[in-house]
């Protein structure tokens, strides 16, 4: 046989082609000998070979809405998984979301009941998702099932719905952020019920005798319109509260107990929380209310600093308040009081306080210790009950 060597260009081309095949082959070999890992699977890139038997998962429904459920009630839904392929389908129960109960696979057409199941072609299994409505409100829970169907390695089954409680207070806790010591603040809570019969108020009480000194309360049936506005509600009671004068300054937490006939007796509860505050307050970056000190920290004397906080005034005497700086420590600190402006509805007046440590200020230490007492800003306020306001300032000026 006459054997002739190929031309040079052909040699190069063949070598490049062989090298290319090696380049492709290596990773293909790696891919075929390594198990699939989650996070790498790319169904779009997968080409099924004709004539090779493969499992095919069929789950026509993956989401179910229970609708409205009573608190404490339990609902179950069965999801069906079947194998529409021509090779055995392996299904494995994966994670469930918090507190959703998931059954093992049920043996509908033979096979064992456990967390893993092999479905023959045409086989079928069921997965039950059970939810007990422990607390009111919307819920959505899910369960994951892993399969060996390369086109659908993971299926997420979802149940959702809305749990209605025996009763619900809206709000459950009446929060009155800033209560003047003169009282007069009013608020209300609506108690909704969901049973067959509308509620009757049997008794309204407080856990202690002190509550009624500072809080007055009344109850009345909710209007049909208000009841209709609450999903699933069939009745309701309006609880009106008013904070009375003389309530002591500081945190306030009181509870009102409402015994309802539904027709069985059910005790509903509404909490009133808040802080009774004085008429004058300070707000702004650096104000530490735990320590009652304005934290400016250590300032470079070379650059100085500038910050703004606000004095707020409320109550009957708010219009009489006109802060004027009387004393400042350290002396290098400059404090300017801006024009007063009403906030929101006008129940509060605010006064900006611009605090400047000018560049070139002399070093000093007023961080607030026995050796270095805190600095201060003293203001004449104009408020008849609190004519002077002293703001402790923690500040040091470095070189």
């Amino acid at each position, binding site marked *: 046989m006459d054997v002739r060597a190929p031309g040079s260009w052909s040699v190069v081309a063949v070598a490049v082609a062989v090298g290319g095949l090696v380049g492709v082959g*290596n990773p293909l070999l790696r891919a075929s000998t390594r198990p699939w890992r989650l996070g790498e699977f790319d169904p779009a890139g997968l080409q099924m070979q004709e004539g090779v038997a493969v499992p095919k998962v069929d789950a026509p429904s993956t989401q179910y809405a229970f609708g409205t459920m009573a608190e404490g009630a339990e609902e179950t839904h069965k999801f069906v998984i079947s194998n529409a392929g021509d090779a055995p389908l392996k299904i494995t129960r994966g994670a469930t979301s918090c507190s959703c109960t998931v059954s093992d696979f049920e043996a509908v057409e033979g096979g064992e009941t456990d967390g893993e199941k092999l479905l023959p072609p045409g086989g079928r299994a069921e997965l039950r998702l059970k939810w007990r409505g422990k607390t009111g409100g919307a819920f959505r829970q899910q369960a994951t099932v892993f399969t060996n169907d390369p086109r659908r390695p993971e299926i997420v089954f979802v149940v959702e719905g809305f749990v209605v409680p025996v009763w619900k207070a809206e709000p459950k806790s009446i929060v009155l952020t*800033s209560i003047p010591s003169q009282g007069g603040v009013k608020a209300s809570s609506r108690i909704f019920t969901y049973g067959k019969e509308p509620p009757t108020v049997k008794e309204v009480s407080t856990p202690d005798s002190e509550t009624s000194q500072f809080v007055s309360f009344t109850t009345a049936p909710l209007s049909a319109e208000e009841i209709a506005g609450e999903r699933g509600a069939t009745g309701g009671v309006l609880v009106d509260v008013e904070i009375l004068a003389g309530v002591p300054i500081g945190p306030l937490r009181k509870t009102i107990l409402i015994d309802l006939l539904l027709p069985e007796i059910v005790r509903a509860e509404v909490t009133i929380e808040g802080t009774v505050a004085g008429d004058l307050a300070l707000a702004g970056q650096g104000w530490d209310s735990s320590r009652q000190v304005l934290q400016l920290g250590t300032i470079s004397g070379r650059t100085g600093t500038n910050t703004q906080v606000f004095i707020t005034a409320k109550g009957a005497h708010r219009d009489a308040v006109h802060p004027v700086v009387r004393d400042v420590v350290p002396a290098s600190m400059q404090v300017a009081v801006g024009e007063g402006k009403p906030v929101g509805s006008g129940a509060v007046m605010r006064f900006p306080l611009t605090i400047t440590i000018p560049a070139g200020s002399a070093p000093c230490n007023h961080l607030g210790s026995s050796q270095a007492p805190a600095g201060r800003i003293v203001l004449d306020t104009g408020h008849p009950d609190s004519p002077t306001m002293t703001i402790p300032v923690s500040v040091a000026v470095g070189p």
Partner: protein
Amino acid sequence: MSSLVRPLFRRPLLSLARMAAWAGRRGAATILAVLVGGSVLPDWAPSARADEAPAGPSRGAGVSDETAATFQKRNGAVFQGWPKPKAVLVFTGELDGYIEPCGCTGKENQKGGLSRRRNFLGALAAAEWPVVALDLGDQVNRFGRQTEIKFGSIVDGLKAMQYAAVGFGPKDLRLPAEEVVAAVSAVGDTPTPFVCANVGLIGFDSGITPLHRVVEAGGLKIGITAVLGDAELAEIRNDLIATKPAAEALVEPAAALARAGCDHQVLLAFATPEETKKLAARYPQFDFVVTAGGAEEPPAQPEKLPPHRAAGNPPVDRHLLELGHKGMFAVVIGLFDDAAQPIRSQRVPLDARWGEAEGMIRLLAGYQAQLETLGLTGLGLTPSRHPTGRRFAGSATCAECHKSSFEVWTNSGHANALTTLETQTPRRDGDPECLSCHVVGWAPQKFQPYEGGFMGVKATPHLAQQGCENCHGPAAAHASAERGQVRVPAADRERLRAELHLALDTPQAKQRVMNNCLECHDLDNSPQFDFDTYWPQVEHGEEPGAAAAAAAALE
């Protein structure tokens, strides 16, 4: 096929024979060419592409293969098939005070927490994905000094995570405005991350928070504003906070964002889904609209809103995003330079695959240290009267007569409840939200002591741990009667005994007992709790007459 290689494949067998002969003469050159060919040709195999392409973020720094695989399997893999995006919008919200997941049943079994969130954002940054982090609001869910401190700590955490924008939730704004202002204000030249169109802290013109913000990431300009819904505004009773109806307040920032030429516009609406959809319909320029008030877990994919059809422009897809509650998930929107798939979304469970971030652990330790420093009194915890009006005796007192039951208790987890808080890092035994289920004499769901309940190990050592009286009720009167410290008629003594007796013999009685268990074994702290499974672990009782005989010996 190229004309250069075609001739070789016309007669392949012949070609192989020719090449064998030829290779002996030009072997070195052939090997070199093969190597070159192997290296320059593209790597076509799909799995090889996964190996070589930069992987999407799948775990936090330092997390082991085993942990990552476990939680991928448990809660699903993330960012599968995602190429590198131009930028990602990371949405979080409704943390509801869950600064960290409860560790009662193993922290690894719970999702959420700022520490994991920090590491998750770190993983995105490590993959060089430009991140815009956005939070809907409601960092807290309670009221009082502890909540104020927690709010400040969470805001410090959000600032450290470089959030581009954070909205307010109604529970944030129930806190004293002084506290909110101190926490959210700009620090030096660093602007506040908080944005809100319809809430003005100490007035709209105080300059504390802007109405909107525009940020740039990956070459994209993202416009953001936030509002509270009208029902949420009604919850705020704070004279230092000015508010406006959401629809009216959005006019100004929407116009500003429209002028800014943003590639995408985000509306963080702390409102019901119904109100949010109305706002989205009125302001169609927002292509990502976040709502509050959905279910505890967000849906796997965001809901599509009707596309925005502006005259002369192609329709723009719009989405409504739910984020779930308690900060268990982040929802990520990937923005791609791909006409076929310009947007992808991923619900990311913030589980143990993301690991813990040292900086956030320090922040949590600082938070716990503040609680410890203030103490229960400094936190404003005023004991309330127990519903029965009775006082507590302590488990050791119960042991004087109920020896068998005490032995069962001693060997249960209840007997070490406080110890577990003392031995954690950082310690949690100064945290009322933990203490309430780990000591005797507190209202578990109110995080508040009853009169005569635990007020610290020094003051009330006999009330440490989760003791007998949390289920049976305060027993001081019963103990005094049995000891003979108080002389009571026999009928009253029997009544006091009966009041503390728990029965499981009727469905109603069993339900009452279970309800008491659920005060602590709730969904957050004991999601797998099932009375029939747990009860055998603590089942106890005395032989008939044993306790009475022991009581008689005390007198």
